[in-house]
């Protein structure tokens, strides 16, 4: 049996999702530690073009699995197809990103393949001849090192934890395309709806002031709006918690299942800094965070950290701004 490190590629509308390349970087790092060859697997209705492109840009071998029933991602069909396609490959590690697809697929696939499963991994550490995988807990306040106990492991990677490589070996990997049969369909995905909410011009804003649950009440939103007004080309945004509470519409949501933004300045007001929120704003040039909790995870990605109550600090800040303008 050929030992392999398998990467499951993710794609949308005929394009490879960028985080797939982060998973490839991770797999190559594992390869230098575990000495098994990396194989990329891509599933879909017609994947020949994307498979060749992947083999060309990364120099890695690619296995494409095709079938009409794979037009949309579906956990049951993916588990069935992967289980059967693996055949005589012995994947020591199966890597994918911790996206809506990755987190949906990984745990069930692990049970089916009799594998350990570690999700939202951010780091690797050699640990007495084995590898431990680092992941956050308690909203990023604690980091845990976890070792898989079984021979096979399924690992999902936190988006943004590894960088896509700029250079790959200057050769083309092999491409193999296989047809796969439909599994029993106890679940059938038939469409993907685009976001109903028209997007705001969050993309154009130089400055985004974002509200989190820490603002306390819907009435306090005006603080965030007033703060945004002191900047040119500014906009307001929100954490998912604020949208879930109905304080702002979902079109304001920033993060994994919301918008991805990269303004010159991002001010996080009462946002804890969950990985899902961070993945949507981490490329901002300057991040300022205001949070009562000195250990809030948002401070780990901030340039300027202010431990204060937003509801009392923003009024002081606005007052000082007035003095500042007058001076």
């Amino acid at each position, binding site marked *: 049996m050929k030992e392999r490190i398998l990467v499951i590629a993710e794609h949308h509308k005929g394009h490879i999702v960028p985080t797939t390349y982060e998973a490839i970087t991770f797999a190559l790092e594992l390869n230098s530690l575990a000495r098994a060859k990396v194989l990329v697997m891509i599933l879909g209705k017609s994947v020949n073009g994307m498979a060749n492109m992947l083999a060309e840009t990364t120099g890695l071998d690619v296995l494409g699995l095709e079938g009409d029933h794979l037009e*949309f991602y579906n956990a049951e069909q993916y588990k069935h197809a992967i289980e059967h396609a693996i055949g005589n490959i012995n994947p020591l590690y199966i890597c994918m990103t911790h996206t809506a697809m990755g987190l949906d697929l990984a745990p069930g696939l692990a049970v089916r393949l009799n594998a350990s*499963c570690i*999700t939202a991994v951010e780091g690797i550490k050699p640990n007495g001849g084995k590898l431990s995988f680092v992941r956050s807990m308690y909203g990023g*306040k604690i980091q845990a090192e976890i070792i898989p*106990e079984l021979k096979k492991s399924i690992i999902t990677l936190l988006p943004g934890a590894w960088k896509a490589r700029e250079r790959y070996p200057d050769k083309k990997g092999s491409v193999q395309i296989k047809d796969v049969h439909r599994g029993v369909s*106890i679940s059938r995905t038939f469409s993907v709806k685009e976001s109903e909410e028209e997007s705001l011009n969050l993309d154009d804003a130089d400055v985004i002031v974002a509200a989190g649950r820490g603002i306390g009440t819907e009435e306090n939103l005006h603080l965030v709006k007033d703060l945004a007004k002191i900047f040119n080309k500014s906009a307001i945004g929100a954490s998912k918690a604020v949208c*879930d509470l109905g304080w702002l519409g979902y079109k304001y949501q920033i993060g994994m299942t919301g918008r991805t933004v990269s303004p010159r300045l991002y001010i996080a007001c009462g946002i804890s800094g969950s990985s899902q929120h961070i993945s949507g704003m981490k490329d901002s040039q300057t991040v300022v965070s205001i949070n009562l909790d000195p250990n809030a*995870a948002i401070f780990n990605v901030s*340039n300027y950290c202010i431990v204060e109550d937003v509801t009392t600090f923003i009024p002081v800040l606005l007052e000082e701004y007035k003095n500042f303008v007058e001076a």
Partner: protein
Amino acid sequence: MRILVCVKQVIDGQAPVVIDETGAWVKHGNISPFRMNRYDEFALEEALRIKEKFNDVTIDTISFGPPRVSSTIRKAMEMGANEGIHILTDEDSFVTPFEVASAIASYAKTNTYEIILAGAMSEDDMNSQVGQLIAELLHRPCATLVMHQEIREGGKELYVEREIEAGRRECLYLTLPAVLTIQSGINTPRYPSLSNALRARKAQILTIEAKDLNIPEKRERLTGLSYPEVSSKGTFIEGTQKEKAKKLLGILHEKSLI
């Protein structure tokens, strides 16, 4: 129709989290503020809405953990769950999602639940695994991050929309019995009613010892806990509120942002 809702008790997000002396797990003081995992409140609310829409629906709620978690089971009953089941462990220690899922699946196997609901993620361990694992262990279909569900075909099929990246939604059908993990924002969880609160206070919770359930070995082992390094790029601005405000404005001005 019978529905099982998995509820986890977690420490409130704003409470400090302290690694214990042995470094093996986190320390929970007696005064730690515990509450129901938020995603599970959404899951329970969704179950209650199914119950209001159809006849003959009963909702059981289940939690795996030390004695303290019984208060969260009772909270679920105050919100309107019919029965509470506690899979009791001795102490607070690291448990893997596979152990929790195996315990819940082994209880659920002998009980015919058409729908099992879990949260999208536990706020403390942040695995996003338990629901999917229960589904696979019971050979049932599963949809995660569910933002909309509708029972169709006279109770044979479930139409589901799951929240994926950039506000998009994946639409799928699941054959019942099925497992869903519920994403936050699907509904607005209710407050307990007085009548339910009174009933819950007196209700019996079915307690099962975890060790009687034949839970398999851990598939992942915890070898270390640490506090994250605060990234070196961050500067904490110190002083009174006024001083902090002045310093921040100075910095923003220097960067030509104001």
